[in-house]
């Protein structure tokens, strides 16, 4: 009973904090210091149409690097956790019901479309909403569809981790190129910023976001594959 009481007390405290924040919140009329800088300078400096992508990839590129590492870590640790399981448990393989007819043909039809859409999303990150993470998630959903349609299917871990690592290394390499060629780490002006609105514009942003998309897609699928491999433990 005391545990429930302390919990309610804690929540009451946090709730009053939030209430305080909401009551004193007054929305700005104009963009503040940093937002106005981004609004004016993104178009000429980086040549990216989607300001949010410009912020994510270049201005706050270190955050994105950290974020991609978060996913890399999660995939590595999930692999570590479930790999530990492999040596210990040896339960008999569970007989799985065969996938339905609809699912297999559907997968064969949808798979290329999903992959194409994913590729579109992360390659046009700097022009339209969407980008590396969303494109990567779509690629992972394509992988998911494959898994659902044929659970016993084995994926080569080698390929997935290879894709993931090459994408990661080239992302860091582009960052370092930023120091050598352009203003600083992760600066996107190592490539010409091209004409505004074109596919090949905004310097290295599309390149970085493609790599991020591949990496995120690979990481999510490696997580799914690790989880699915617990099937026949």
């Amino acid at each position, binding site marked *: 009973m005391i545990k429930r009481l302390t919990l309610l007390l804690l929540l009451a405290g946090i709730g009053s904090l939030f209430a305080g924040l909401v009551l004193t919140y007054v929305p700005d009329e104009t963009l503040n210091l940093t937002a106005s800088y981004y609004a004016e300078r993104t178009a000429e400096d980086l040549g990216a149409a989607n*300001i949010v992508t410009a912020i994510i990839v270049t201005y706050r590129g270190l955050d994105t690097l950290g974020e991609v590492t*978060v996913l890399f870590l999660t995939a590595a640790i999930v692999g570590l956790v479930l790999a530990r399981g492999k040596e210990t448990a040896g339960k008999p393989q569970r007989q799985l019901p065969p996938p339905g007819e609809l699912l297999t043909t559907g997968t064969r039809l949808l798979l290329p479309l999903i992959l194409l859409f994913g590729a579109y999303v992360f390659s046009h990150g700097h022009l*339209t909403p969407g980008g590396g993470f969303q494109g990567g998630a779509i690629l992972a959903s394509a992988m998911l569809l494959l898994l659902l349609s044929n659970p016993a299917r084995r994926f080569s871990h080698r390929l997935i981790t290879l894709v993931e690592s090459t994408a990661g290394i080239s992302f860091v390499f582009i960052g370092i190129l930023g120091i050598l060629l352009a203003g600083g780490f992760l600066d996107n002006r190592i490539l010409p910023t091209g004409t505004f609105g074109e596919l090949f514009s905004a310097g290295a942003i599309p390149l970085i976001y493609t790599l991020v998309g591949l990496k995120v897609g690979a990481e999510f699928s490696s997580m799914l594959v690790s*989880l699915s491999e617990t099937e026949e433990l």
Partner: protein
Amino acid sequence: MALIAMITGFLLILIGLYGALSNRNILRMIVAFSVANTGVNMVLVAVGYMKGRTAPILDEAVPAAEAASRIIDPVPQALVLTAIVIGVGVTALMLAYAYKLYEKKGSLDISEHTELKW
């Protein structure tokens, strides 16, 4: 509009925290945490919203010249994107832990795993 979203977000956080800390089943705790994460994301976006302005994408409708007066604050959106992915990362890690805890102890009840005392 921003206030509605912010209040919903805070409510979600409180519900999520209540669910996470009062439940005994590990999976329910993780579900509650993912609800709380969605709540936080909603608050983050709500803070960046400005009345009567559009999304920070420059195209024909919002030319670069008058961008400063037409778009909302892009920075919270960049932060939210990172926060969502980090939230998913931590949730996936917790699920892996939950699976291992279940495999080791055969039950999903958190109270059985408290061998370590104060």
